[in-house]
């Protein structure tokens, strides 16, 4: 019963933030001399118009699901993982390195790629987790630093070891055997970017939901998130759980990187910190940190990102409108505490007035009985 109320409230909060984001987008379109209705029409049609575009929406959403899960998972332990971008890069680098190095059959190669990206991301995030647990270094700052270390690591490693034939700034294309794209799926969605990543993402959403709701590990992680001291006092090792939580969050982002660099794309560009890492924060906030909420929020953002190209082609609105909407949603999600508090206040006022009414009735009935 209580969780139902909570879910309903979260849903309203999220829809409210989305509404404000869309309004901000509409204002920006109108202010720059475009018709917002046309803009949104083409934006949504661009993401849903035909089977190919739906496939692209799912493919774009895939890394966002992982990035969002990563942020949401760490958040359950009270940690703020804004290192998703760096963890994605490292996961993608591991995946690309394996895909370009080994000449194995596809199933084995894909298995190796998935495991390598999981481990790469996990290690990249476990270090900030360790620094937090052991030295109380703030994870926000540490993960920002790790993002840029990953950025420069990729910047120098790709040209040195995996340089593409034409450009210094990108890796070679990965062979078909190392790609998460499979022919039957591509032809089912008439040539879209969709790949096995979306199925892996759904599996991981279910796994994370299971870990959080049904296992001791999930219980301990959440206990640390709710109240660190109380958790410590009841025998839960806070430090170990902090490192675990970051490592799992990093593993998710790392796998997300693999689904982006060897699924959606087929090579790695240097000098780009993947936006999905930061969009993941918006996804987690919008999804109220619940795994299935993250899934839905990622689909919505995937839709925006897929539709923006079509909108740009049909109108003169630059594609960055989608990013503006997402950024505005984050801003309002950050400030939603205020809305939430007022919501509670309204509830409380209603409740107290209800209780007072009942009391008055009771009193009346009591006094009536005495007479």
């Amino acid at each position, binding site marked *: 019963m209580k969780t139902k109320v909570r879910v309903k409230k979260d849903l309203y909060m999220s829809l409210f933030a989305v509404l404000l984001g869309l309004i901000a987008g509409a204002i920006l379109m109108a202010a720059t001399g475009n018709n917002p209705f046309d803009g949104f029409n083409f934006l949504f049609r661009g993401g849903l118009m035909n089977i190919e575009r739906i496939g692209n929406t799912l493919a774009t959403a895939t890394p966002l699901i992982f990035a969002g899960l990563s942020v949401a998972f760490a958040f359950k332990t009270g940690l703020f993982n804004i290192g998703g971008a760096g963890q994605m890069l490292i996961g993608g680098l591991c995946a690309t390195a394996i895909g370009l190095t080994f000449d194995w059959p596809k199933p084995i190669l894909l298995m190796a790629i998935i495991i390598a990206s999981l481990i790469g991301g996990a290690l990249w995030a476990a270090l900030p987790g360790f*620094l937090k647990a052991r030295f109380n270094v703030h994870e926000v700052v540490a993960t920002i630093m790790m993002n*840029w*270390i990953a950025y420069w690591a990729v910047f120098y490693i790709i040209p040195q070891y995996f340089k593409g034939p034409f450009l210094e700034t990108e890796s070679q294309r990965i062979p078909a055997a190392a790609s998460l794209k499979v022919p039957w799926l591509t032809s089912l969605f008439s040539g879209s970017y969709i790949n096995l990543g979306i199925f892996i993402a759904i599996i991981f959403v279910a796994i994370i939901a299971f870990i959080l709701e049904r296992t001791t590990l999930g219980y301990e992680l959440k206990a640390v998130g709710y109240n660190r001291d109380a958790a410590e006092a009841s025998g839960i090792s806070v430090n170990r759980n902090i490192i675990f939580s970051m490592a799992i969050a990093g593993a998710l982002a790392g796998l997300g990187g693999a689904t982006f660099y060897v699924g959606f794309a087929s090579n790695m560009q240097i000098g780009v910190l993947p936006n999905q890492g930061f969009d993941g*924060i918006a996804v987690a906030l919008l999804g109220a940190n619940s795994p299935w909420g993250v899934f839905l929020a990622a689909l919505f953002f995937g839709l925006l990102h897929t539709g923006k190209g079509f909108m740009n082609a049909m109108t003169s609105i630059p594609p960055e*409108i989608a*990013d503006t909407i997402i950024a505005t949603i984050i801003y309002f*999600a950050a400030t939603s505490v205020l809305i939430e508090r007022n919501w509670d206040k309204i509830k409380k006022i209603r409740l107290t007035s209800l209780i007072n009414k009942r009391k008055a009735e009771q009193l009346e009935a009591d006094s009536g009985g005495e007479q």
Partner: protein
Amino acid sequence: MVDLIYQLFPYAIAFTIPLLITSLGGLFSERSGVINIGLEGLMLMGMFVGAFTITRLEMTNPGTAVWIGLLAAVFFGALFALLHAFACVTLNANQVISGIAINMIASAVTVYLARLITGSGNIQIIRGMSRITVPILSEIPILGRLFFTQTYATTWLVLFILAFATFLLYKTRFGLRLRACGEHPHAADSAGVNVYLMRYLAVMISGACAGLGGAAFIVTLSGEFSGTAAGLGFLALAALIFGQWKPWGILAATFFFGFASTIANVSQVIPALSQIPGIYLKTFPYVVTLIALVLSSKSSQAPKAIGEPYDKGKR
């Protein structure tokens, strides 16, 4: 080797200055108790406004266009920072999330507008700031050549602002109050300081400084707005932490980072440096910041109330 240092020095200083002023802005915000991860976005806003203003004016008044551009960047940086202040101070929002939102809004909106203006999204200025050699001081042996030849006017402006900011923070009533808001806002409030107002001012100062930093980068080094601040804002944030939230610490840290980045940027073309792998030089600032955080974990100089929304009711 000596010649090499002479050659690199002007570039290293030119690279340091945008970092220094942005980091200094971050100092104001964080010393008042508001985390500012949005420095990157604020810088980007400064880059956009600076480049846009200069391209509009450089045909008609080529002499003053650069300065008007810098001024506009300062103004719009402060204005944009208001968004962060409103979220963090008035709405008690999570300061980290708000900062991330600032970064994302800046990169989305500036590129959106730049695309409407130029199509490609890049805004190129024709003439940046010209280098000047300081008359008498450049005659000083060694130091004269290192510090006083081929300098930009922005360098001197920023160093002046650094000195002024240090004075402001440590020698005036305003500075004391601002720092009090970051250490113990409730005590400051009970002593009659308007914590909300102080934090608003501090965040707006940080926006103004970061805007200046972004525009300074455009007019000295890059010459164009290209839709990204390329991590400069985060580098400034790292310098703020590595400099332990102190003006002179920041000066040292930014110079350190600026020099390392410059060496990394030119190491490809200069044989003497090509032995040092670029990856070490480029990741160096972030690695040393992590190490500094570990080493200072016992005695962190971070403002005590940083990141906490101030709630008057909890006094």
